[in-house]
């Protein structure tokens, strides 16, 4: 049984030899977890890219019907939220408690804004009967750049199925992120983070940036098909 021959930071866990080892391990662990997330979303992206190639016209028609302005606004919101995360970490590194807490709150507000805008989009789709399932309809929608040529509703339904699953999964990750940041906010309030120890902020930040990056891929792929026509 290891005797406590020297005192150490209470945050150092027993099975680690040094704080640096603990910090590196936490960071490495989060990067690996993000790799699993890449593969998770990757399967969806793969299915999406295949169907988009096969049914380009139908997908373009379906894409036109989702609101690129709202999607674009969400993109801006998320990018800003990543900035506030970075500022929060800087605040912890430089012992600026007020700024840290402020930036964490702002990040969460951006996250809630994102979800709110998403909610509006989903409501719109619901009212237009673009939600896949029994009440789906997509009749008589022209393919952009192809007057007189109408989209195949079955293929459009595939677009919307993938749209809802991809953005829905992303939104779920957002919600989890908000949960993580709630805990980070509480810990920051309690003064747990110092310039020497703010590992949870760093790995929470990594997770948040990842969720942001997934959206940056989703937005052009889903919202911007053939918009120039």
């Amino acid at each position, binding site marked *: *049984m*290891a005797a406590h021959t020297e005192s150490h930071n209470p945050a150092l866990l*027993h*099975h*680690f*030899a040094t704080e640096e*080892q603990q910090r*590196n*391990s936490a960071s*490495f*662990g989060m990067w*690996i*977890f993000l*790799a*699993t*997330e890449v*593969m*998770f*979303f*990757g*399967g*969806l992206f*793969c*299915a999406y890219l*295949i*169907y988009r190639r096969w*049914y380009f016209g139908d997908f373009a028609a379906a894409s036109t019907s989702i609101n690129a302005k709202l999607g674009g606004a969400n993109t801006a919101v998320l990018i800003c939220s990543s900035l506030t995360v970075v500022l929060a970490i800087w605040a912890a590194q430089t012992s600026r408690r007020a700024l840290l807490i402020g930036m964490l709150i702002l990040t969460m507000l951006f996250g809630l804004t994102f979800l709110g805008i998403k909610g509006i989009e989903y409501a719109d789709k619901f009212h237009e009967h673009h939600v*896949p*399932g*029994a009440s789906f309809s997509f009749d008589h929608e022209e393919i952009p750049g192809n007057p007189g040529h109408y989209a*195949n509703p*079955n*293929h459009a*339904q*595939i677009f919307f*199925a*993938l749209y809802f*699953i991809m953005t829905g*999964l992303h939104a779920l990750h957002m919600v989890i992120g908000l949960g993580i940041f709630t805990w980070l906010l509480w810990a920051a309030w309690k003064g747990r983070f110092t310039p020497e120890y703010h590992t949870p902020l760093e790995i929470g930040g990594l997770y948040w940036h990842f969720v942001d990056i997934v959206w940056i891929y989703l937005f052009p792929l889903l919202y911007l098909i053939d918009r120039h026509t």
Partner: protein
Amino acid sequence: MATGNIPPVEREDYLNKHYGVGSWLFTTDHKRIALLYLISITFFFFIGGFFALLIRLELLTPASDLVQADTYNKFFTQHGMVMVFFFLIPSIPATLGNFLVPMMIGAKDLAFPKINLLSWYLYIIGGIMMLHCMVTGGVDTGWTFYTPFSTAFTNTKIVEAGLAIFIAGFSSILTGLNFVVTIHRMRAPGMTWTRLPLFIWAHYATSIIQILGTPVVAITIVLVAAERALHLGIFDPKLGGDPLLFQHLFWFYSHPAVYIMILPSMGVVSEIISCFSRKRIFGYSFVALSSISIAVFGFLVWAHHMFVAGMSVYAALIFSLLSYSVAVPSAVKVFNWTATLYKGSIHYDAPMLYAFGFLGLFTIGGLTGLFLAALGIDVHVTDTYFVVAHFHYIMVGGALMGYLGGMHFWWPKISGRLYPEGWARLAALIVFIGFNLTFFPQFILGYLGMPRRYADYSHMPEFQILNVFSTAGATVLGVGYLLPMVYFLWSMRYGKPASDNPWNAAGLEWQTQSPPTTFNFPEEPVVTWEAYNYDEIDKGQKEVPQVVG
């Protein structure tokens, strides 16, 4: 060879440190978590084995007279799902891996002990869900749940089974994540990459596959569940979807998954063969590199499960070519293990008997993989019992033999007791005989043309005699598996107490107590010797390499 003669002094170890259910259910000690896993996966092994028994009983006679076809279809589906997701995938990594990885590298625990416990709970939740699914109706799609049958043509509990597997998949991912970070960051001073036991290399490679592959089957399950619930068209041709897309997504994980199942076992075999030949594994770096190659190449061959599925000829050619390249590192390992025996000093204890069994059966299983990779032959034998025989040779003749060998080898370390050697050798022999009798006839049945997943073969009575041999073998095999269950349990109470290193084996895990203390090492070890330094050990130069504190 095992030396068990020490006075039974009651030392503190990880088993007796705390008592009570709570101390087990809330433990973060990797060794206790390994035992929690051991109990759970053994339970699921018996569930899966029970289904196997029912399958073999039904196939004794040509007619579907034991159970109705629908029930039989659930038997083979659930046999597959339970064995693959709840036994084989976790087996060695979650039990032996969890127990040994930290000790082999000189660490006190894994990098993330709480996540380790979480992974066990996720496994249990998934397992309970699977059990519930099976007793409230079950699934009948085959463990491969191809679309559109699974999405639009069956009324069985696909979503629940899928969810159970999804959750168990997270367990697998977390184990892999833990191992990779641990192996990178928590090696003791002096434990360089080239001094690592091959068991560690094997688990490292396995973990890469778990991390990168499992999420893909997870999303596939999500898509199937969504399609069922909402009548989407992602895999339904009537709505513009493609059933082959499902197969590609499914096999992208499920092929690397078979390497998750075999690589750890190969790691165990390396440890056993070197200890019981008293020498270093021949070609250490080639064996280590082969493990990594198998993990990498394993991701490139998935569509060899789809040669007759309706893929283009050119895709088939590419995947066949790649499948041959993944066979090469496995062959290299078998040659290296065999060469290790040359000029060794070989002992025939039970672990070594299992390793010998592995060598023979894995060789046959691997060679029959060549048959399947051969396009011209695969057309005839795919979806027949030839494939069933091939993968059982690898999974049961290979992975399970390795698992049993490893359990015997490290049992003194895990429990502090010796198992009864005579019974163990007998059990190994029974398993070997029973196994071959069960599965060799199936190669012949497959080439004859007996398709898989057939409840009834009454129009082909000529298949019966080989099926009878197979069922007879399965009974023998069952006995062979029951024996270790009985004597391992017996040994926990009545077995001879084991010394700290009864096999005089190399490896840091043997420098700890038997059973080890909670934090494994009194002081952090500093490694100054190469792996498998049996010459030093046997010459008594360093009787057992001392821990330098």
